[in-house]
């Protein structure tokens, strides 16, 4: 039982990250009807940008010392009486990292937003009104362009990046078993869920959120009501790229930087289809389900089986419910 809870916790944590990634795919689909196969590679860029701004840039000679590691006097005093490997020490070392984490996040968000605007303008805009097939293929083409460019720009692999939150193990007892998790992962989960919730609120209550939902409902009517539809497209890509940048940073802290992050994005596509392409709630449900299923598979069958869990699950769900758990059924007109 204890083991079960342990893997359940692991599953929920990775499910949260899946949800954060899926968020980007869904928001782009809702606004523009484009399913972004290259979202994983957008995340890959987010991860590399985070690495660039949080690790490479602070190391540069022209940056002031306090960016590299911030050591105000009170922090030195605080650290002095903290035993090593204690939560206190972990928090202290996190605080001294805060400037570069913030720099990294800000840089990754800005750079990824710029990248997404570029993609939207250069690739997606000219293909407006083309078939689904052309849209899918152009994002598939993007996969290669992004992967190749990442390979040209960054040669680093499996580099360490600073964790977003203070990272210390939390141990507790439940059902007579010792469980533990890293506070860093808990922090990541909270960030993911907070972003998810924030986006929901934005879509529901703000003016631009309503514009996005109106465009998702019916493009030409949205046009007729005076909504600037191309700008809605841009903002959908912005949402995807910025949430993707955060997801990339989280993934980089979890598994290290490597091109495999891009491939991970493809498995999230399976999760999204499972939940229903146009339903945020369905996607959240599917992410949690896949996260937990993956953790359970890892527990019972081993890591390699866990890799194909999303693909098997999506095949089964598509066969039974072609539009996912909560996706809207498309009505075809003859």
């Amino acid at each position: 039982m204890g083991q079960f809870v342990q893997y359940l916790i692991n599953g929920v944590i990775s499910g949260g990250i899946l949800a954060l990634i899926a968020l980007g795919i869904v928001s782009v689909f809702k606004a523009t009807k484009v399913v972004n196969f290259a979202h994983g590679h957008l995340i890959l860029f987010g991860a590399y940008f985070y690495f660039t701004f949080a690790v490479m840039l602070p190391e540069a000679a022209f940056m002031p010392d306090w960016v590299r590691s911030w050591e105000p006097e009170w922090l030195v005093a605080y650290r002095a009486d903290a035993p090593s490997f204690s939560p206190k020490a972990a928090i202290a070392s996190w605080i001294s990292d805060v400037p570069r984490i913030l720099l990294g996040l800000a840089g990754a968000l800005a750079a990824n937003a710029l990248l997404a605007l570029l993609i939207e303008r250069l690739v997606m805009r000219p293909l407006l009104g083309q078939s689904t097939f052309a849209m899918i293929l152009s994002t598939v083409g993007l996969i290669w362009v992004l992967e190749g460019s990442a390979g040209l720009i960054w040669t680093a692999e499996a580099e360490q990046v600073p964790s977003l939150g203070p990272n210390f193990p939390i141990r507790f007892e439940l059902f007579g078993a010792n469980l533990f998790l890293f506070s860093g992962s808990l922090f990541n989960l909270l960030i993911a869920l907070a972003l998810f919730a924030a986006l929901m609120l934005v879509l529901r209550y703000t003016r631009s959120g309503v514009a996005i939902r109106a465009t998702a409902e019916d493009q030409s009517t949205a046009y007729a009501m005076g909504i600037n539809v191309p700008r809605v497209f841009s903002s959908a890509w912005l949402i995807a790229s910025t949430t993707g940048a955060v997801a990339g940073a989280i993934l980089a802290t979890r598994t290290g930087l490597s091109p495999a992050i891009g491939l991970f994005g493809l498995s999230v596509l399976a999760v999204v289809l499972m939940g229903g392409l146009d339903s945020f709630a369905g996607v959240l449900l599917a992410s949690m389900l896949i996260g937990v299923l993956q953790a359970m598979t890892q527990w019972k069958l081993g890591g390699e089986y866990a890799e194909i869990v999303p693909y098997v699950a999506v095949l089964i769900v598509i066969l039974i419910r072609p539009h996912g758990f909560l996706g809207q059924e498309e009505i075809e007109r003859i």
Partner: protein
Amino acid sequence: MITGHYKTRYTADEGIWSTWPKQAGLVAALVALAVLPLIANNYVLLLAGQIAIFIIAVVGLNVLVGYTGLMSLGHGAFFAIGAYTTVAVHHEFPNTFPLITLLISIAVAAAFGVLFGLPSLRVKGLYLAVATLSANFIVLFLIRQEWLAEWTGGVSGTETPNAVLFGYELRSQRAQYYFIVPIMLIMLLFAQNLFRTRFGRALIAIRDKDYSAEILGISLYSHKLKSFAISAAYCGAAGCLWAYFFPAILPEDFGLNMSITLVVCLVAGGMGRTLGPVFGTVLILLVPEILKIVFANVTDGDANAQMLFSPMRDIAFGVLIIGFLIFEPMGLVSIWDRFWRFVDRWPFSK
């Protein structure tokens, strides 16, 4: 439409090689294919064999994507099934006649094609693309498993047999070439003829509007599955020839990259035409080689620069596919058509 051809009978309209430029072109192409091994070196023949095998696979993909309008991002799996079936058959019966192995590979791949095609009865477009993509991952996962390793070699791949025709082992690139290219030509001819039949036209009807086709009395159920089977059979044949052609195979050879490459070849060439896959495959497979030569000349064989080659190739592929989609969505074959239309109408053409 002004075509410049005066036809008086339906048979003339239906003919594949009805006009003299087409006949001359066919003869010229056949002569060129037959003579190529006599003048080319091994490097060129290796490339030619690879292109011929890919053409078979892309023609198969064209049956499904180009003619039936079903999307697939998982055809690398059928390729893998064909290749591993060949290896397994030779593992059990070492002296099987290659053409029999080819038929077995085709049959096994077609059976898997029907299995993979099942989602196509429920979903299409994007959902089918992801379903086939998932199937591709699952097939490769199975191939990597320990308990199949006796036949597949597992993660580390396996050595593949050489084809033995009437006691003569096809070792050299040249011999392999003469084995592969005739098979490719027969399969091309079959695909071209398939779409002059009732069945082929039914597939085209499904592509254009599936419910209209159903109203006309075409069973979507059986036609979609048959289309999947034929398409998979082509890829299975390609996989079988691939296993004979190369000394060893790895599961990774048949991953997502191969599936996407097949689609890229199809898009670059032009969907729904028999010549499309031919042009597309030649272009897409030659691009890395041309890049390699240009790269070696520019960098003078610098080892550090060689590291950049693979990313550059990826970018070139990506730019090609996006470029074709934006500027020439019908592929190379439409350029070819425009050229011949110009020739046909000359001197009245603009």
